[in-house]
């Protein structure tokens, strides 16, 4: 499998570390909503099809990437920097500044 790192270009799977499901929503750090935290830490949508996930180019630029990959075919339809494409909830919380 080749993943095209937006910085390094197409690189072999062996250069990457899988960092898991990118559909999870991390609650606000101060939140004490146990259900929300449990959902974030333990539950997965485990999609059969287009799956948003994080990969770290640990054997290259070390950036975390947001990858959309079809779990039935392994075809990759999108790769971007996680810091720019992390899931929307992050963006909202960011406006609130440091947590």
């Amino acid at each position, binding site marked *: 499998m080749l993943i095209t790192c937006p910085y390094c270009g197409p690189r072999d799977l062996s250069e990457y570390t899988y960092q898991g499901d990118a559909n999870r929503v991390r609650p606000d750090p*101060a939140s004490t909503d146990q259900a929300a935290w449990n959902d974030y830490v333990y539950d997965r949508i485990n999609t059969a099809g287009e799956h948003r996930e994080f990969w770290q180019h640990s054997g290259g630029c070390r950036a975390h990437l947001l990858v959309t990959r079809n779990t039935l075919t392994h075809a990759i339809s999108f790769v971007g920097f996680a810091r720019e494409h992390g899931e929307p909830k992050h963006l909202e919380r960011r406006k609130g500044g*440091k947590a």
Partner: protein
Amino acid sequence: MSPRRSSAGGRVDRTRTIRFTFDGRSFTGHAGDTLASALLANGMTLFGRSFKYHRPRGVMTAGIDEPNALVTLLKGDIREPNIPVTEIEIYDGLNAVSQNRSPSLAFDVGAINQYAGKLISAGFYYKTFMGPVIGPLKGTRFWMFCERFIRRAAGLGHAGTTADTARYERMNAFCDVLVVGGGPAGLMAAKAAASDGARVIVADLEAAFGGTAKWSGDVIDGKPASEWAAELADELAGMENVRLLPRTTVWGYYDGNTLAALERVSDHKANPESGEPRHRHWTIRAKTVVLATGGFERPLIFPGNDIPGVMLAGAVERFAGEYGVLPGERIALFTNNDSAYAAAANLKRAGAMVVAIIDVRPEISAAARELASKAGAEVRLGQAVVAAEGGKALTGVKVRNFEAATGMISGDPASLAVDCLAVSGGWSPAVHLASQAGGKPEWDEALQAFLPPKPTQKWIGAGAFTGAATTASAIADGQRAGLKAAGILAQGKEKLPSVSEPALDPSPAPVLEVRAHGKAFVDFQHDVTADDVRLAHQEGFISVEHLKRYTTLGMATDQGKTSNVPGLAIMADARGLSIPQVGTTRFRPPFSAVSLGSVAGERVGHIRPDRLTPMHDWHVEQGARMYAAGLWYRPMIYGAPGETVEQAYVREAKAVRESVGIVDVSTLGKIAVQGPDAAEFLDRVYTNLFSTLPVGKARYGLMLREDGLAMDDGTTWRLGENDFLMTTTTANAGKVMQHLEYFLDVVWPELKVHVTSVSDQWAGAAVAGPKSRDVLAACVTGTKVDNETLPFMGIVHGEIDGVPVMICRLSFSGEMAFEVYCGAGYGLQVWEALIEAGKPFNIVPYGLEALGTLRIEKGHVTGAEIDGRTTARDLHLGWLLSKKKPFIGSAMMDREGFVAPTRLQLVGLVSLDGRPLTGGAHIVENGSAEQLGQSIGHITATCYSPALGKYIGLALVRDGKSRHGKRAVISDPLRDRFGPVEIVNHIFFDPDGSRMHG
């Protein structure tokens, strides 16, 4: 010249004689021979014994699809089992032996099995060997008793235990176009693709390029096809944008157009050149792939079809055409299609006597008739071979009338005396790689074959792979594919070579089996007969996968290349369905068997690297026993002559408590955490506060995982307002780095923080003991090291022996101690300077064992306690859990199960019988070797404590805190260690820390 070798023709060099050995007997062959062609030329017919019935078997094919003729190659004690003779290029001194026979190939006692044929039919072993339900042989015993004999009978060749001395290596390649298969289609594709400068790789599993052109007898551009192909290959070899890979099997088609290929670099040489590998494992990343892998001929299924001398027609043709070897003196052909007629004509041209062509079809094309008369062969249409006769060699065949539509047999048998029967059941395109790439092959009724699926990755098919039947169409196909693959717009007027070849009918008759009395084999190596397939059907194993698994059809070393379609056909017939309705099995890597060594590549003999500290060589010179910690090597003890491990670490630990010792801590993970938000970031990452840490001070910190369990601990030093140096445990350095990067990239990208691994930038030495400050005072310049300048957890910068150093006063040992850091390149120099300065105080270098002893006495935790299952509170680190702020893990750390009183908590243990405690032992309230107790926990670390004069340990014990002062029992049945212990506080020594603060 041997009896079976024609006087001319083929690409063998009759002027070069090569000597080799088979089963201890020496033979000669010629340059260009395979072991198969050389032995056939010597008149050999018997090559091996089958898996189950041990029936005599000859060569059936001329390539990698060979199911029968497997041998073991010997290089001294190094063994290479199960290699088809058709894949082996001979060289002087080649030494091969036959397999799966005893005592000899000619006389094999295992052959008795064939008389038990009906008894040991498909799946018989599931129905017996279960043994009695009571008595000494109940349970699994009886089966295991029988199994021993079954295992001895099964298997093929013997593997060796001697380490292989050959070299293996990997190679990464990138190209615009990878052409798989160097036949006419592949060569044309390569030429077209390369014409515009594209980077092209052409791989072919044979020694010489050309594929069928090497023996087809066609004429291309007025030349013999073999010449045409050789010239084209030379032309390609001369282009700098083309790489030709002969003897290279592309065996895996993985995601992202990544293909794996095995190049047999020096298997054909008596001695490889210096540094030359035996096998090279290519990982090829191609923008586009051209699959021109050709096809495999299928056998026909009839009684006796496995007798040595019954071969595939294409193979017989190839032996004659490429190697100038005639596998028989009187050859007959048996076919359901036209291709055998071309074979007959070529055989005749090579000097063979072609007795007859038996064809199940009532009539045939004019071209076929013409070829038959060229071959001088009697044509018997609407007939079939109902039996092949002979034992270790074919003596003749029986032929009767056969109705293709119904399979009905009639009329009196005619006997033909032949010593070679060339059979053809039509051709199956080699769709394996396309199937691996994803997608299901599609059945073509006219060609009676599975054709490649629609591409699911970037590949284009060409030649026989696509079902193309003629050389002309293959060539045109190849050119088209090559242009397309390289993205060159076809002008439509690209010059195509002219081909003269007979106009044969590509469609075979839909007949693969002749049902008559006797064992008719479908999978030759595994001895799966047509009746076995029908038995599977009868017992309900009717899906392709069940058929395969129940009968082992297609599971042999040839991976069903010859048996797959015939097997399906018989099942389809039994179920009254069409072949595609029964389905095909999905092909997976490897396309054909590859050596384990080749895929291991250059890592054979270099499984993982050594990671060394700057002081490594010094430790070794001082006689340290080195300990592998992950990839690192660290001193375990600096044993003096005659010292036991315990004596050594006790001596070292004592020295630290009494005077001063020094230990190499360079392996600790070190991460530079920099930026205006660095302090804020650390507050979120650690359970305790770091924003309040003043510049020039260090603080101990604990990290949790998101799930609230302890992850790692260490000290972090504030070197500047925005500049921290984080240290982690040796084992978790990489994990923590990734943890920090994840949160900075994914969760808090708004933070202005950079993390950089500086583990290798700094050498570290911990100087510990009451005299440690005196040692520093004696060698450090540029700063004072007294209590005011360098208080506990303080940091100063200075020089040792002219080398800039950074010194932090912190203690793992519980003694007054300092960690001295300097550039790794200066590590040894500073280390030696410290040793020198320490001489007056009898400074002692100490290793991991002493380090462990000192930390156990102090109750400090390491990976053995922070094992991914413990909470901060379990380890008495609750005081580090800040209430002032959220941090990673804070939301999850108070879950019911994480605060339950039944949890394992850290305690100290003291051995009450004066004997050592054993690591990994369990703790029970009471119990003995005879009567094991209930485990209430386990020991995580043990030592002899010189400070206490006792054997002590740390343990994780259920509700441990409430057990202080209570007695318990160490229970270690594995090492038969039982005895009384007292459970105590985990801090054994100097609980108020006066010594390190002092």
